[in-house]
């Protein structure tokens, strides 16, 4: 799974905001997320909320894609701004899927659609949406629907970068699927921290040390992994 920082829209907006505030010297902030053993944490969602200014109004962006391939969702964690849409293409060769969510932020289901087809869902409420497949219990994906345009997902080295930030006070929120009760409680379990971004200064790396639960994902059945009967 490749880390996919969703910076396209955010960068433009921050650029515009910087223009609006009359300051072109916007700052970048690096995040480094580790667990209690100081191992880098992938798939953590980092979101920044300005405390000195209101959030900019949401504007539609290009839909992100969460594909189903090899009876897995890909990517595992997707962060997007509220109002954005996601496409759920079935990239299997033969198997149908029945993608659903029971999360209050976006309950939906797409009963049994064939390979090659794709469904699109618009996430109109902030929160964590857990995607499942009614046919394959082990299939699991998280869509983190955020109100802020400033967010990123950590890469395999546990780092993420959010660019184009105005100086001032910010609240950082870090969410990860393996935080305790993350699937049920959603963003409420996110680690939060406030910090001030000084003008014309190099922002220090924001490090978060997360206490993560063991990975309790359902194991895939052996036959579908191609191992066959033995």
């Amino acid at each position, binding site marked *: 799974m490749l880390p996919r920082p969703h910076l396209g829209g955010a960068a433009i907006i921050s650029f515009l905001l910087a223009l609006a505030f009359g300051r072109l010297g916007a700052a970048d902030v690096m995040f480094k997320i580790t667990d209690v053993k100081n191992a880098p944490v992938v798939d953590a969602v980092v979101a920044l909320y300005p405390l000195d200014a209101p959030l900019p109004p949401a504007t539609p962006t290009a839909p992100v894609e969460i594909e189903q391939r090899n009876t897995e969702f890909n990517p595992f964690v997707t962060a997007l701004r509220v109002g954005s849409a996601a496409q759920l293409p079935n990239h299997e060769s033969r198997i149908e899927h029945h993608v659903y969510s029971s999360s209050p932020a976006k309950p*939906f289901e797409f009963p049994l659609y064939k390979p090659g087809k794709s469904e699109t869902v618009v996430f109109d409420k902030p929160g964590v949406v857990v995607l499942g497949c009614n046919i394959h219990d082990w299939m699991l994906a998280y869509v983190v629907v955020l109100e802020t345009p400033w967010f990123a997902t950590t890469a395999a080295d546990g780092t993420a970068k959010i660019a184009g930030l105005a100086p001032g006070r910010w609240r950082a929120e870090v969410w990860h699927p393996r935080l305790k009760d993350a699937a049920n409680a959603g963003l409420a379990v996110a680690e939060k921290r406030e910090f001030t971004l000084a003008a014309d200064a190099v922002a220090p790396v924001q490090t978060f040390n997360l206490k993560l639960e063991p990975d309790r994902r359902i194991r895939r059945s052996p036959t579908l992994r191609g191992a066959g009967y033995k």
Partner: protein
Amino acid sequence: MPSPRFQFHRFGTRLLALLLGLLFVVLATTYALVARASRANAQDHAAQNLAVAAGIFDRTVQQRIEFLAASASLMTGDFTIKRFFLQAERPDFDTLSSTLESYTERVDSTVIVLLAHDEARTLLANSDQAMNHENLEPFRYLSRLAAERDEPVVHGFSYLNGQLSVLVVVPLYAPRPKIAAWFGLTFPIDRAFAEDLKRTTRIEVTFVSTDDPAQPRVLATTLPEAAAAHSAIAARQSLGQTAPFLLDLPALSPDSPATALANADLSAAATERYVTLFKRQPMLGENAMTIVLQRPLRPELAAARELQKHLLWISLAAFALATVFAFWISRGVSRPVLQLAAHTHHIAAGDYARRIEETRADELGQLARAFNRMSAGLAERDRIRDLLDKNVSPEVAAQLLRDGATLGGEEREVTILFADLRGFTTLSEKFAPRDVLNLLNRYLDRMSAEIEKNGGVIDKFIGDAIMALFGAPVAQGDAADRALAAALAMERALAELNRELAAEGKMPLALGIGINTARVVAGNIGSHRRLNYSVIGDGVNVAARLQALTRTPEYRTNIITSAATVAALRQKSAPGILPVFSAHGQEARATSIRPLGSVHVKGRAEPVEIFAVEPAV
């Protein structure tokens, strides 16, 4: 003295008592040990069965839980259920309740409830409308426990509408780890469950609630009501009891009226003893419940009883054998002993000729041989004594037997009597020797008899002469008196013999007797091979000389004695006359002693004063 027979009977009885007593101790001990061991074994066996039953109970419950959990897992994964939570609008929970109702049929759960994954665990759907918010607390408790522990299945015992039940709570994942709701399933621990357990384990099962100390409640049981009530009381009284123990329960048939209940007097009623095991079963948020597992002891003891019966028969047979054996041994001992006893009677009676059979090799055989040897020895001694009596005088024989035939003697005062037949040499020439011998024997026989009657001892016969001793070998205080009495008796006996001879037309005999008292040496005289008891001394010669003096016509007497003898007389109240003389029951006779003056005796320097002895007129 008890009769020997009785004694030996007692010996046999004692032997019998000993054998039977020992046998009894051994058998009784064995019996008691076997009984105790088999009882303990039966209890152990029952206790093991109870422990196994307790394990089977746990396993059965666990299997039911696993079955329900698996069923629940399948249900929650089912599209039918899940889709209720995928709709944006409020789900149709009435339909969901109906769905759950049909599910209860499918998985044989008494009730299935669906609780929301919210703080209050709101009831969403319910297969049984009787289940309301109040009695769902155990499910709520379990679902919170499951969320806390992040476990896919939690379960526990609780009362659901008063019914003891096992509750299973499973989360409805949509998808995992997102919890959409909670599934609660249950199955009852009721009489059917208890009966099922009994079928598998053949153990009586009673579930008892001890929440109310005054009134323990039987929740379900395989026992008759009264027995179960008793078990419940016992369970209440011994909550901490974890080891198996024995409990008496009323042995009522299952259809007995329940009136004879918990407090019924067990001593009056028929009871059945049960090996009982209490198993405490924790309850959700409540006091633990007690599972009473029981197995009657009687069937467990059946094998032991059989063994004991066999043992009893073996014991009786051993007793009988021991009795026979004891009789045999006692008879084997007592018969020969009785024989020996009879033999001693024969020996006591002087019958030494009998012999005991010497067939045995044991101690009794040795004893028999010793007896026979003793008989032979006694017979030999008797024979020797007999011969001795004939050859020597009885007193000498007795002295020989007493002191042994050893050479040597002792000095003592003895009165010596010498008697000689006058004119015997002429007689021998006239008659045939056989006739002479016959006559001589007749004469000697009479004389000997008179001497012995008066306590004299024939020392020896010297042809027709007799030498007799008074005061030897046995000392006599009145030896002199006896000698004089004997002499006079001989004179009379000869007169009697002469009358007989006259009647036979034979010549009369005449004798002369000399009596002297002197200190002599008395003892066994001779060689080591042959010896005689006799006396040696000058006094003996004097007696012989005095006898010879009776031939002197002017003395006109047949009996001459010396002054020493007269001096030794005990009876001398009147001079010259012995007024009374008594010996050996003979009638008293007066004796006259007439002095004859002094004579010179050949071989002696001193003259000897002599006296004639005559019967008093």
